[in-house]
């Protein structure tokens, strides 16, 4: 049996009056160091992370200058996005990861951190306690 010692603990965060396994991360533009704090759902069903397109210009990116990317949702509908390299900062700077993050050019409701993010760290969920745990190493 494998045991993991987690060094970071976060309470679930609220969305539409319901608690979800979300974390607040700072998205940072590596070139300008502009940064904003955003809530994001941890979603192991998402093969790649995607944020609302509105977040890109908040940190100085021109959304449409990124590489085009397409997601397929659970219903098969496409969601289009553009990729920009960002820094994702966790826990008031405890850990920072470089990520080629998709910013949606279609209307989406929520920021998702997917398996590309999970590939950078280890996550544990304790759903009935409304808490999640992160060890910031793969």
């Amino acid at each position, binding site marked *: 049996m494998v045991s993991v010692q987690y060094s970071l603990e976060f309470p679930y965060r609220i969305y*539409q009056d319901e608690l979800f396994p979300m974390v607040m991360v*700072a998205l940072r533009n590596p070139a300008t160091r502009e940064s*904003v704090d955003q809530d994001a759902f941890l979603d192991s069903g998402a093969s790649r992370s995607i944020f609302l397109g509105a977040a890109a*210009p908040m940190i100085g990116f021109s959304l449409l200058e990124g590489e085009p990317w397409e997601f397929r*949702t*659970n219903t098969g509908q496409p*969601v289009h996005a553009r990729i920009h390299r960002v820094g994702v900062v966790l826990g008031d700077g405890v850990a920072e990861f470089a990520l080629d993050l998709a910013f949606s050019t279609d209307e989406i*409701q*929520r920021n998702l951190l997917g398996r590309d993010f999970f590939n950078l760290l280890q996550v544990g969920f304790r759903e009935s306690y409304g808490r999640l745990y992160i060890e910031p190493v793969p």
Partner: protein
Amino acid sequence: MAWRRANAEELRRRFLGQWIVLEGTEIIANGPDPVAIVQVARRRGIHSPYVFRVEGEKAPKTSSLGL
């Protein structure tokens, strides 16, 4: 987060669909343009503003998927 939860109804009543920059329990800026309110926050000296959009209530008998 506790403040957001306690004030969810008031936030929806006043700011539904708008973007908000929240610093602790203080609403620094709000409006339809997230870039504009982030700029207001940076002028106030907030290096990494916490920005969110005020969503409506979850409809009854609904659950959410990732996207």
